[in-house]
């Protein structure tokens, strides 16, 4: 069990690093200029949506990982 917990922690860390990389690569250069003064609101709105989608994917992966690592222990 303890090894599983350390493995889960390590996996979460890896997911944070990879997720961060995707955030920077996807969201970093993203910009819309053709909407005058409102371009930053639209850009931010799209960035928020992408970030939320990434968070949902992150949680789903984590749930699958949790079930995989703790499948023996999670009988309750």
């Amino acid at each position, binding site marked *: *069990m*303890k090894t599983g*917990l*350390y493995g*889960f*922690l*390590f996996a*979460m*860390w890896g997911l*944070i*690093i990879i997720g*961060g*990389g995707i*955030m*920077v*690569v996807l*969201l*970093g250069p993203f910009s819309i200029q053709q909407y005058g003064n409102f371009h*930053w*609101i639209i850009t*931010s*709105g799209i*960035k*928020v949506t992408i*970030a939320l989608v990434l968070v949902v994917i992150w*949680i789903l992966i*984590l*749930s699958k990982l*949790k079930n995989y690592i*703790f499948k023996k*222990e*999670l*009988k*309750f």
Partner: protein
Amino acid sequence: MIELIIPAIISCILAFSVVYFTTPPLIKILVKKNYTVKDMNKKEDVMVARPGGISIIFAIIVSEIVLYGFFQLNEILALIITTTAAFLIGYVDDRKVMGGWFKPATLAIAALPIIFLGAYDSDLTFPLFGDVQIPLLYLGLIIFMIPITGNTINSIDVLNGVASGFMVIASFTLSICLFILQNYEIAIVSLPLGFVSLAFYKYHKIPSKIFPGDSGALTFGAMYGVIAIIGGVEIIAAIALLPAVINSFLFLSSVKRVVEHRQIKGKPVEHTDDFKLKATNEKTAPVTLVRLILAGSPLTEKQVGFVIFKLAIFSGILAIITAFMMGVSL
């Protein structure tokens, strides 16, 4: 450098000694006023004083005001206001049982001074990949961060000494990371949290003489969240907090809603005849970090606490590695 060392030493001594010397009289006052709760993990009927958050917030305010005298940073003001607000929210919950949404909603409001005082940088820094500019998203992050860190620390406050001991490890890790990143002023601002937690641990460790209560746990968590924001180390802070994050994640993914612990019907943990802790098989009970630790075999309260501390140290090492990775770019 001397202009940084002197405030650091003074604030750390103040943070530690205020908790160290005010907690014993606070325990006496709380016991006299009958502000005690039963320690559920003891065989005998042991009543423990609560909330210890009063001495914790007092020490934080005193040490941070001294630091403000030296540095005059808006970041310190934001930290004092948000942390005090978190304490008051916790204190209300200590005195009167509030609904599941009370703490997250009010803690979100408590985060607003960080925005109004402009004590943040909207760039989110990731290891290896660099910065991403997210001005609007970052405002949301600030509002979410304080309830998350506050409630995460609160949710791990289930055994004697765990919340304060965990905070000692996590907050000193965060301070080390801030020093690695050469953010010296915020590193010094963060140090009192570690020293306050350390002094409080003396009275909170098994067998507890005082519990921090929601006021203490939310104070710890909120201050940790504010440091993460004003120091620009949100990702590192999340990594150092991972064992507690796992606890919240397991709880929420099994319960599937935001709910107070006391509203949960199934018991995740029970006691053996020799009063060790043991995971239950109840389907309705939430999955928690303690329940997972106990899934292998029953353990004493002290043993479970040490497993959590070892996990916190492991996360701390990962956080420090991450801090070093911040300087590397792919």
